[in-house]
């Protein structure tokens, strides 16, 4: 069967995934051709704004790796379809004359609606739909000061966020008397407006734009019907969308009066061999401008095309949960109370606005509006969709919790059929089933079911369901460190710090049991080091250390160690390079350049370590802490000193940062990097702490990771001064060291952090926890007490004594045998 698909957006892509999956199950052979007028395959249009807050086009990609190759699909990028002939059953594209099909699928999405305003074709007028649109806007914004968005709906506010992220003075112009008039009522709209204005954007409602003309103080001017005007450099139209049905229309396939390709419940158009899905489709006179209904259509169409008739598209819930310019806004079901006899309850304190719409008998929830606090969205949506009987006093659901009272929305109230993830069609029953199959974390659930992987809105609710199901199974949701301590690492850290505990003996006798083990001892050692920064090889600490820390070197598979001296920022003098080479030659060490701009010397026997270090210290080196769960390195590019493109001195900053945090013990290793410009040669976005120079200062990225599970770092703050940068890193590291689990890298720490990056940003940049000064003072204390561990070690006879293989002989370990390979010694 030859299948042609027009459009590779999120819905088109979902259709392909469903199609190849079900075709494989059925053993059906499909020859699939996909036409995509954009230059790249499907990406997450819902998250488009994040393109300006640091995400790249690659981050937004939603196509699984090698998807098209693996399934033998033909993808024609940059190839717009120009016409179809439903009688001859061929598609004509910009590059191909006649591509025959047996079945054709429209997934053409929609176009931005641009109102009839004179001057709308001017140079500075844009729409907001594709990555290319965004790139064009960004390029023009670089030479602009003011931007105005025409449209105060959902998409308009998204566009406004983008302009703000580009650093423009931002205006929102709305025709209706309030923002988001489709989803919100007057009071909610007013509250939202206040919040958005507090964030620095100006809102103009009830403004009918008549014309765009030459400006007086800016490049352009919006002229309104009431005679007023607004000066702006850039204009972005974001006043709604219109289904892209022009190809169907031209081919004589039935479309609706106000646009949209008409489909039945199988997503077939008037021509049974032609389907339409997503925003371009019109079902029962309605179009669906959200991704969840599009995904449902994609599945229905894919299955129907393969001969499965049962599944039907029967409309979809249009509830939405959004974060608009940082403000939570939710609209559920019949938010306006248009059902006959509907009653409403409203609670507002001018910070949040919550409204319930209930049936005349007050038994069921019909809809809701939430502004400023989205926590109740999941539960309220479930109550609406499942017709769950309301408690006696429905207002309790939105009133703030007072002591003694409690909210009645528990996950146990929900039936198994309750759809939790509407984007990916995952029910409560499926989540429970998956948990019974052994899944115990949200991360694992995401992998197993795709739940919470699209908009992510259902994440917290899914987590509650996982925990409730685990509890039901009698699985204690335990974060105990090990059998010796019934505490999490975070709790132990607190106990150690608050009670001034400095030895493992005291810790285990007061808060644990038994003798300890190789889990809790290194964890305790790390906590002591973070809190008190005493030499880790003091007799009271030495037994707690993992062998790497115990010998201040990295154990290799043959029992020898490798040595990595610190090379701050990767900058090293020729004299030091020579010294390193001389030492390596003298002790017959294998040398290799590490990925972190340092030099690793391998093959040192335990008794050689102090001798090697004596030479290195004499040459001016100090410990690189490659053996510790500690700061490793701060990688840097060469920066403005040499580079034609560098805008800041990245090497100097890297050295400053490395010398500040060197030796800081943490739950896991910490890697950092500083890039001197946006070309990012130091790969800072793959590090726990990444710093990228801008014209105005430094952008700070956090919680990136290479390794087994790479994670792109999140932008925490922009355009920081040197001092602000250090202050924020102090706070960030302090929070991580205090609250992360044992062996938890910053990336997983963030993924498990309630509230995610937003919470972290508030804590670090706005000091929302009020801990800022304390964290900075703690860090300063640490910095002031830094000493090179190797220097201390070779000056302390009782420590040096342990650096030998046999307690009763000076012979070396006969088990260590080397052979030569490519001119160096390696384990035999």
């Amino acid at each position, binding site marked *: 069967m030859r299948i042609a698909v027009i459009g590779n957006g999120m819905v088109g892509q979902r259709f392909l995934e469903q199609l190849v999956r079900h075709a494989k199950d059925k053993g059906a052979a499909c020859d699939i051709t996909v036409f995509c007028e954009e230059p790249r395959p499907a990406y997450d249009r819902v998250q488009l704004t994040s393109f300006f807050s640091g995400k790249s086009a690659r981050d937004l990609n939603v196509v699984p790796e090698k998807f098209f190759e693996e399934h033998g699909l033909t993808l024609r990028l940059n190839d717009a379809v120009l016409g179809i002939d439903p009688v001859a059953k061929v598609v004509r594209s910009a590059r191909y004359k006649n591509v025959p099909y047996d079945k054709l699928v429209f997934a053409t999405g929609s176009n931005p609606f641009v109102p009839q305003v004179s001057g709308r074709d001017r140079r500075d007028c844009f729409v907001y739909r594709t990555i290319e649109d965004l790139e064009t806007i960004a390029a023009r914004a670089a030479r602009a000061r003011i931007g105005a968005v025409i449209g105060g709906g959902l998409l308009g506010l998204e566009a406004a966020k983008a302009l703000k992220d580009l650093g423009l003075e931002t205006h929102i112009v709305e025709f209706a008397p309030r923002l988001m008039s489709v989803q919100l009522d007057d009071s909610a709209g007013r509250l939202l407006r206040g919040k958005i204005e507090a964030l620095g954007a100006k809102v103009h409602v009830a403004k009918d734009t008549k014309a765009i003309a030459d400006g007086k103080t800016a490049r352009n001017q919006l002229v309104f019907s009431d005679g007023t005007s607004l000066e702006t450099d850039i204009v972005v139209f974001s006043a709604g969308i219109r289904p892209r049905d022009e190809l169907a229309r031209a081919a004589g396939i039935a479309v609706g009066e106000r646009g949209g390709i008409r489909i039945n419940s199988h997503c077939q158009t008037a021509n049974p061999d032609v389907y339409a899905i997503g925003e371009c489709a019109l079902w029962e006179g309605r179009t669906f401008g959200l991704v969840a209904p599009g995904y449902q259509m994609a599945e229905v169409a894919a299955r129907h095309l393969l001969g499965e008739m049962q599944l039907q598209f029967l409309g979809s819930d249009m509830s939405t949960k959004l974060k608009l310019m940082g403000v939570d806004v939710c609209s559920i079901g019949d938010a306006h109370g248009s059902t006959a006899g509907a009653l409403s309850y409203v609670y507002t304190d001018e910070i949040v606005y919550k409204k319930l719409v209930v049936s005349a008998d007050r038994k069921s929830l019909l809809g809701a509006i939430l502004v400023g606090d989205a926590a109740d969205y999941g539960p309220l949506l479930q109550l609406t969709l499942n017709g769950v009987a309301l408690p006696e006093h429905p207002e309790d659901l939105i009133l703030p919790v007072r002591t003694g009272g409690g909210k009645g929305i528990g996950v146990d109230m929900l039936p198994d059929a309750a759809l939790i993830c509407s984007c990916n069609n995952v029910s409560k029953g499926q989540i429970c089933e998956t948990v019974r199959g052994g899944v115990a974390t949200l991360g694992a659930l995401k992998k197993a079911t795709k739940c919470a992987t699209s908009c992510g809105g259902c994440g917290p609710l899914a987590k509650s369901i996982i925990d409730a199901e685990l509890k039901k199974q009698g699985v204690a949701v335990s974060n105990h460190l090990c059998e010796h301590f019934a505490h999490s690492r975070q709790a132990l850290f607190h106990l150690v710090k608050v009670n001034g505990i400095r030895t493992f003996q005291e810790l285990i006798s007061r808060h644990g049991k038994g003798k300890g083990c*190789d889990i*809790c001892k290194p964890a305790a050692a790390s906590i002591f080091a973070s809190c008190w920064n005493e030499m880790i090889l003091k007799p009271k600490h030495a037994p707690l*250390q993992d062998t790497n820390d115990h010998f201040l070197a990295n154990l290799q598979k*043959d029992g020898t160690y490798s040595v990595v001296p610190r090379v701050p920022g990767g900058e090293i003098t020729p004299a030091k390079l020579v010294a390193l080479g001389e030492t390596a030659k003298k002790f017959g060490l294998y040398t290799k350049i590490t990925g972190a701009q340092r030099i690793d010397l391998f093959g040192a026997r335990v008794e050689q370590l102090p001798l090697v270090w004596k030479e290195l210290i004499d040459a001016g080196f100090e410990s690189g802490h490659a053996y510790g769960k500690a700061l490793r390195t701060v990688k840097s590019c060469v920066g403005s000193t040499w580079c034609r493109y560098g805008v800041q001195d990245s090497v100097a900053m890297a050295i400053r940062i490395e010398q500040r945090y060197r030796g800081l013990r943490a739950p896991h290793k910490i890697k950092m990097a500083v890039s001197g410009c946006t070309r990012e040669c130091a790969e800072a976005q793959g590090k726990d702490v990444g710093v990228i120079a801008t014209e105005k200062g430094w952008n700070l990225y956090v919680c990136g990771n290479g390794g087994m599970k790479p994670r792109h770092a999140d932008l925490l703050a922009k355009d920081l001064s040197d001092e602000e940068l250090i202050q924020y890193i102090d706070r960030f590291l302090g929070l991580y060291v205090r609250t992360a689990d044992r062996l938890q890298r910053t990336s997983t720490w963030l993924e498990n952090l309630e509230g995610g990056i937003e919470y972290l940003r508030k804590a670090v940049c706005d000091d929302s926890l009020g801990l800022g000064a304390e964290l900075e003072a703690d860090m300063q204390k640490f910095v002031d007490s830094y000493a090179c561990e190797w220097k201390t070690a070779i000056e302390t006879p009782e420590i040096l004594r342990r650096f030998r293989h046999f307690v009763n002989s000076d*012979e070396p370990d006969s088990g260590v045998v080397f052979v030569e390979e490519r001119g160096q010694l390696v384990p035999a």
Partner: protein
Amino acid sequence: MRVCGLEDIVPDTGVCALVGGEQVAVFRIGEKVYAIGNRDPFSGANVLSRGIVGDLNGELVVASPVYKQHFCLRTGRCIEDASVSVPVYRAVLEGIDVRILKLGEANVLSSAV
């Protein structure tokens, strides 16, 4: 034979002793001493004396510093893999002297590998 004094072993750590050409890991837990073979059977490296000691379900163990399997200090048995064990030696404390009885002598409790 005497391998070292008690004060040569930091409490709750181990050292390696050369006993009749064999490598023996000797551990000090409080005022008691234990000895097992120093060779980690999983990696082949002579490093068990450098592992962290502790207890699991009440049994004294050392964790191999290479791949972290646990070996019982009294029996030499590997906790994670019952088919693997390391030799056990008799370690005794005479006054402040730590003595290990030589391999092959009747006092060797077991020698499974």
